[in-house]
């Protein structure tokens, strides 16, 4: 028994117009200053005002949102009393919006209590809309929330099925302004979601098709979107691919590359998509040593390799690295600009945090502590995994 959770998704050119039909009194838009300055928040406000909905904006979400930021947003929600909370932006504002929604409905909760084991009883006061502006984290369709515990410098993997948005608006025009590096980083995040969602131990029949199709679209359209941001066909296909990947991995799980990427991101503030995609080929190679089948199947479906087994799985890892090179993204931690001495000084914590990250639950080859340490070392040096 498992679940498949999805918001109502409005997608494609002009999807933002769906806000004109929204019923309600007050909306709290959770976002960041960049989107305010780009005029995107004003566009969303204009649609809501056409629907007769008063708007308030919480624009203090930082990259890798902290527990403190979410508490501040929840405080504003308690003052404003919205009946719609709207997460507008990349993964950070959308995740923050989900957490703010939970704390607004349940001010008695500690953020760390937002977990899938306990019913939260939400939707007594408001409902949730997510609008992605990157392609992307998939947060618009998942029930996961990643916050940063700034005291422990650790990512907290939180969430619950009630946190899936009521409506996700996937309008490619909102992603069109992304510069090339952001396009590459967020696109590779989507790729990692889809590959991990397909190959992890929690994969399902309902999610496999979404993940596979997302991977296919990303390999085809991400290089185009990075090379020419005005290529609206590429932008739209990538925006849809990221949402499909989000539905896929959101209803199965992310895996080891995310565990390692979360740890690296919390310690060194590497952009999330860049971090997870560095680790992805290494984790594919590691899993391929003992559990190659899902990776080999993916390699076959994508016409990367028909060899089967570990050989096909390694071919998939190579293809992922080739894509990173094509996009100008790093394929090792050293290449990402982290000094060795700094990395080794924090290695124990990186291993600890990754070992206990919720995404590690679904690894099809669970590493021992020492193997995980070796993985981090190989990924620093850019050495293909041979153990």
């Amino acid at each position, binding site marked *: 028994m*498992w679940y498949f959770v999805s918001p109502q998704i409005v997608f494609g050119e002009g999807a933002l117009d769906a806000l004109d039909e929204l019923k309600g009194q007050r909306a709290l838009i959770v976002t960041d200053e960049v989107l305010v300055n780009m005029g995107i928040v004003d566009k969303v406000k204009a649609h809501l005002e056409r629907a007769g909905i008063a708007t308030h904006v919480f624009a203090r979400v930082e990259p890798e949102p902290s527990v403190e930021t979410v508490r501040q947003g929840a405080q504003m929600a308690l003052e404003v009393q919205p009946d719609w909370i709207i997460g507008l932006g990349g993964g950070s504002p959308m995740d923050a919006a989900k957490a703010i929604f939970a704390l607004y409905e349940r001010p008695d909760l500690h953020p*760390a209590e937002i*977990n899938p*084991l306990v019913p939260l009883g939400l939707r007594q006061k408001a409902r949730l809309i997510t609008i992605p502006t990157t392609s992307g984290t998939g947060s618009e369709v998942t029930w996961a929330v990643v916050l940063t515990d700034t005291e422990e410098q650790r990512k907290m993997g939180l969430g619950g099925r009630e946190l899936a948005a009521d409506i996700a608006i996937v309008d490619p025009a909102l992603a069109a302004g992304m510069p090339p590096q952001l396009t590459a980083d967020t696109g590779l995040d989507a790729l990692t979601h889809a590959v991990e969602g397909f190959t992890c131990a*929690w994969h399902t029949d309902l999610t496999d098709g979404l993940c596979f199709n997302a991977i296919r679209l990303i390999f085809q359209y991400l290089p185009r979107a990075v090379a020419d941001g005005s290529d609206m066909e590429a932008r739209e296909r990538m925006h849809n691919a990221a949402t499909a990947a989000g539905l896929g991995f959101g209803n199965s799980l992310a895996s080891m590359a995310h565990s390692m990427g979360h740890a690296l991101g919390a310690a060194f503030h590497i952009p999330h998509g860049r971090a997870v995609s560095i680790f992805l080929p290494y984790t594919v190679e590691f899993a391929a040593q003992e559990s190659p089948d899902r990776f080999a199947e993916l390699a076959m479906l994508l016409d990367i390799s028909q060899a089967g087994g570990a050989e096909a799985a390694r071919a998939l890892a190579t293809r992922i690295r080739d894509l990173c090179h094509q996009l100008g993204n790093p394929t090792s931690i050293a290449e990402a600009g982290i000094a060795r001495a700094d990395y080794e000084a924090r290695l124990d914590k990186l291993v600890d945090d990754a070992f206990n990250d919720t995404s590690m639950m679904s690894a099809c080859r669970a590493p*021992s502590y020492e193997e995980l340490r070796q993985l981090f070392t190989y990924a620093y040096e850019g050495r293909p995994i041979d153990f």
Partner: protein
Amino acid sequence: MAIKFPSDEWIKELSNQLNLSESYEKSAKDWEGDFVFVVEPDTAYDGTAYLFLGLYHGKSTGAAMISHEQDRPAEFILRAPFSAWRQVIEGKLDAIQGMMTRKLRVEGNMMKVMRYPKAAKEIVSCCALIPTDFG
């Protein structure tokens, strides 16, 4: 030789396996909180069994089959029918997914449980090392 589940011998063997497991020790090095596993009756098992497992900082402090869950108060109680326990031990039901679908019902500080998913998996891995008689 297979050990009957549930039994005092079985839970003591789990305690032993945990203390031999480096993976468990590393993943649970900060863990504090004992468990009582409640094996509920179903078509395959009559009666109710209570298994106490003491856990502290990566080690098991002891284990015993007890008469009632209140005999050795524990921070966490994990309840499930016999067949669900069997599925977990045999690797057919992921323990975390089991908790998320309420096949395994957890009482205690959920915040803490979700902070140690790896430790939970390692406990299940140790269960799988015990030759078990479910008959």
